[in-house]
Each structure stands twice: as structure tokens, then as C-alpha cells.
């Protein structure tokens, strides 16, 4: 172990810094315009599912092991890649509203979330960050793609939801 180990390989938590380093943090101006993809994929996984998933050809790679590259002007934040990413590591953030943010996360647990549900918002380490209202849910191959309202300051922190049974 002569090389330095990145902290995410010790604690399993991918930080915003890690995402910034691989150019996957959407630029400030783009964030203001509306929903945009947040791909939290800092390792060279042999996988290009997001590239073939994107209906707008906004994600690209030269080789299958590349870290995805996003064309921020082409991405409309539709969330199709969220539904297909095998690593469940893609999210959508929408910071265009004045008073709140919309965050889209993948969800693969029961009970199925429904529009209008108040759900627990979970952070990168599983800590509850409060509750949020589900504003949109759709499903693809048993993955629910759930959009929740969150306070603006939590837009990059909410990584999952938990629906009370």
C-alpha cells in the first residue's frame, strides 16, 4: 500500500470533492437553469450503460473503463440514466426554484413510494436529514425513480429516501 488510499475507498462515501475532481459536478450557471444530472462515479468501472441510456447523447466515453463525461448543455435532467445505472450512482438535482430544491434518487425497496408521500431523506452516510415530499415517481425494471422536495442546502446531500411502512 505505497499509494495513498482515497478516503472513499475506506469509508464508502463519495464526497462532492471526489465528484468535482472527476468533472462531474454541474457548473453553477447550468444548475440555475433547471434539472441536471449528478453522476457520482469516481472509479474506472468497465461500464457504459449511462452512455447508451441517454436519449440526448449528453454522456460520453472513449473507452468502456472511462469515467463518464457530461455535456451540460445537452442534459435536460430527464432521469433515464438514473433508472438504468447499475451502480445506482446517478441523481438529478434541480436548483431552479426559489425556495426549494428537487432531488431525484433511485429507490429499490418496499413499500413503493407514491406521489405526495412524506419520506425520510437520507444522507451519504445514512443519517436522516429530515423529511421531504415526493413530487414524482416512475418505475423502470423494478427501480423507482423518485423526485423529492428538499431544502436548497440539502440538494447535494440527499442520496436516498426511506418510506415509512
Amino acid at each position: 500500500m505505497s499509494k495513498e488510499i482515497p478516503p472513499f475507498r475506506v469509508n464508502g462515501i463519495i464526497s462532492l470533492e471526489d465528484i468535482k475532481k472527476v468533472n462531474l459536478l454541474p457548473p453553477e450557471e447550468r444548475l440555475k437553469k433547471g434539472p441536471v444530472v449528478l453522476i457520482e462515479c469516481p472509479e474506472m468501472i468497465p461500464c457504459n450503460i449511462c452512455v447508451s441510456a441517454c436519449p440526448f447523447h449528453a454522456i460520453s466515453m472513449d473507452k468502456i473503463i472511462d469515467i463518464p463525461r457530461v455535456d451540460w448543455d445537452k442534459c435536460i435532467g430527464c432521469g433515464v440514466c438514473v433508472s438504468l445505472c447499475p451502480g445506482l450512482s446517478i441523481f438529478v438535482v434541480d436548483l431552479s426554484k426559489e425556495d426549494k430544491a428537487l432531488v431525484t434518487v433511485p429507490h429499490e425497496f418496499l413499500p413503493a413510494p407514491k406521489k405526495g408521500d412524506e419520506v425520510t431523506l437520507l444522507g451519504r452516510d445514512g443519517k436522516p436529514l429530515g423529511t421531504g415530499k415526493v413530487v414524482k415517481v416512475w418505475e423502470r425494471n423494478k427501480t423507482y425513480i423518485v423526485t423529492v422536495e428538499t431544502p436548497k442546502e440539502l440538494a447535494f446531500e440527499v442520496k436516498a429516501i426511506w418510506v415509512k411502512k
Partner: protein
Amino acid sequence: MPSSKKIDRRIWEHPILEFKRGKEVRFYFEGEEMKGYEGESIAVALYASGIDIFSWTEDNRPRGAFCMIGKCSSCFMVVNGIPNVRTCREPVRDGLRIERQRGLPDIPRVTRDEEGLESKTLETDFLVIGAGPAGLSAALKAAEYGLDVILVEDHFRLGGQLVKQTHKFFGSKDLFGGLRGFQIAEELSKKVSSNPKIKVFLETLAYGVFKDLTIGLASKKGHYKVKAKNILFSTGAYENYLAFPGNDLPGVMGAGGAQTLMNEYGIRPGDKVLTIGAGNVGLIVSYQLLQAGAKVKAIVEAMPQIGGWVVHAAKVRRYGIPIYTRHTIKEVWGNNRVEGATIVQVDEKWQPVPGTEKDIDCDLVIISVGLTPDTKLLAQTGAKMKWIPELGGLVALRTKYMETTVPGVFVAGDAKGIEEATTAIVEGKIAALTAVLRVLGHVDKAVEERRQLVQYLEQYRQSPLLSRSRRGIEKATIES
């Protein structure tokens, strides 16, 4: 054990899977009537009803479920008077009489009725042993070029360990990437079953290699000698054990064994879980245990860092599962079933650090500390083997076309060294195309297709995080 009647560990609602249970069946376990469902194995039906102990050793130590895929010997029981039946692979059915063994069993007076059993010699272009991702894709590829194929599998269904993979696979769309493992199994199995060039032998054991590479097969239907122009060993791998006090207590299970119970059969293997090993298997199975309604208390990893992809680790962290690197399991305790475990930090020399012990309240400890290639049968061919730790142990030397040092004998998938299902699928195809070329002579299309697949594998393995297995593969690869 009257209390066992009330227990039902079956999962009736699951976010990803639908468990289509067959007809209800009744059988007898040590005299007591029990129920199961068609499609379950004996061990599965017993576990579902709360039976944790499958046998006792000579010195009265209980033995429970471990691998659940026919590779270990934890589930040996007496079935209708026949001892040492591997009950994890034996279908449960009406009227069976099951007894537990204590120590080594007596030799049965009656083995089986030889009448009505077939005895045949079969010839084929391509014999494939093991119907997991490598074997299924190899059989299909060879059949596509017109070869006659015999596919042998010891389980009662096709798919190998793909059938229990509920996560979506990495890779690219054209090689099933993005699909869930069991969906890939369904797709491949359907194609194999409907292909007239492929003859499938389920519940059949390839047990030995004889003169001129004749392979012996045995099943309930009979005994077969197969003379094949080419043989592929896609026999998979088995789970490694770990030494610690209490490691033989029922409730200490292979992570794959737990995954078989919950995802192939819909049985919750435990309610409170401790996972040993933060490689991809440990991380993925922990996530799937959450989906099955269990609580995962912690994942411990002796190495200073997580072994699997960080996206898999991030997935369990967001639901609050802690990962303790530089930690290991110290001991497990319980009365005939795990009731708790102690974990401890280790220092740079892997020695436990006194005072860092933590007790974990759990009823299931899953072991995911690596796999060992299953090469016992392959080695009988005389193929040259080599010990390569990066690939999980003893593996066969082979060309980049997956041919061993014995001409016409191939290896693919985890049996060639531990990797994963996508590479297994590609290797199976490469082996099959090489068999095609051996049978048919030069075929432009096959040569070109094989070239592209070899290139795909090379690119796929270029990730810096796969450098260890890449190094292993370099050591195992010989000139073609």
C-alpha cells in the same frame, strides 16, 4: 420440534423478485410432517420452516446451511434411507422421509434400483460442463455455428449463480449490461432450452475423466459416457471459509449461500446480519439483505480499504450500514444458532488490537472473503495447473482462446480464475468459437468474432482497479 411448525421464513413480497412457488408438498422430517413447495430443494424447505441444524458431527457439533449450491457438505442428510444426499440440490417432493446424520453414516443396504436406468455412450462436438453464464453462452455460440452440444448441470435449473443476482450488471448494453443477473439467466436459459442443437442434462453430475477424455455422467435417469471433440469446464467456484471460534455454528453462512436462500428461493436467511468482507460480494449481498427485509448491522473488512467498487459501498452506506475497515471477526457465539458476534480492529500486522472489541447482536454472519475456482474435474484431464493467488488458487494454464494445455479442453468463467459474470459470458463465447474452428476448420466469421471478443475483454480489464486480476490472467495465459 413442535415449535418449528410456526416458523415461516419465506419472503412473500420483494421489491425486485416475484417468487413463483409451485404446488405445496408434504414430507417427513424425522417423523414430523412438514410442508414445502415444488421448486424448492429439501434443505431450502427445511430452512424455510426454521430448521437450522442439518446434521451433527461425531462430537455433537451442529452443522447448518453454508454454500447452498452443491459445493460444500453441510447439508448432507439421509433421504428415503440413502445417506449423504446433498439436500440443497435435491428437489423436495411429496412423501420424502428425511433424517439428520450424526457423524459418518452407515453404508446403506440398498443403494438404488438399477432397473430402468439408461446406460449410454454419447458422442458430441462440444461438451459443456456447468450451465452458468460461461457455459450457457458457450453452448449457444457453438450451436449457432452448427455444432452438436451437450450441456451438463448438477442443479435442477439452468443459469448457475446468475439466478440469484438481483442487481443490474455493469458492462455494455450489447453484452447484457444494465440487466439484472437473473434476467440474463432467464434470457440465456430460454434460448438454450429451445435450441435443437443443444441437449441439456439437468440434475446430472459429471463425475470423472476417463481414457481418451471420455467423461462420465451420472443422474437419476442413468449413466452416460460422453466422447466429445471439445470439452468446456465452466464449473464455477466455491466460497472460502474463514477460521474463527464458532465458525461452524449454524447461522454462519457463505454470503453466496445466503443469497441463494433469499434470491433464488425467497427465504430470509436471517434478521440481523453481520457481513465479513467488503468485496463486491459482501457489499452487494448486504444491500440485497436489506431488500429482503433484514437488518445489516455492519460490514467488516480486514484490509485497510474496501475491496469492491465504491458505488456498491456507497449504496449500503446511504441506508446506514457501517463499514469497518481494518476489522475482523473475533468470535461467534450461540446455542445451536448464531446469537451474536464480536468484531475487533486489526493492526498493520493483522493482529487484533486489544480493547477494540465490539459485540454485534446478530443471528446471521455471512462470509464473503473470496472464492476458489472449482477445478477438481478439469485437473483430471491432465491440464497443466498453476497456483495463482490473484485468481483465487489453482487454475489451468490456457491460451487467450481459453484452451488449456490439453488440446480441445477449455476453461471459462470463475473456474479459470475468479472474475465476474460479464467476463465469463465473453470467455464462454471465445472458447466456443475456438471449438468451432477445431471442428469446422477455418471459418472467417468465427475468427473475426473471436478477435473482437478477445479485444473487448482486454479493454474491459484495463481499469486500474482490476490490476490484480489482470496480473493473474497474464500469469495464467500461455502462447496460443
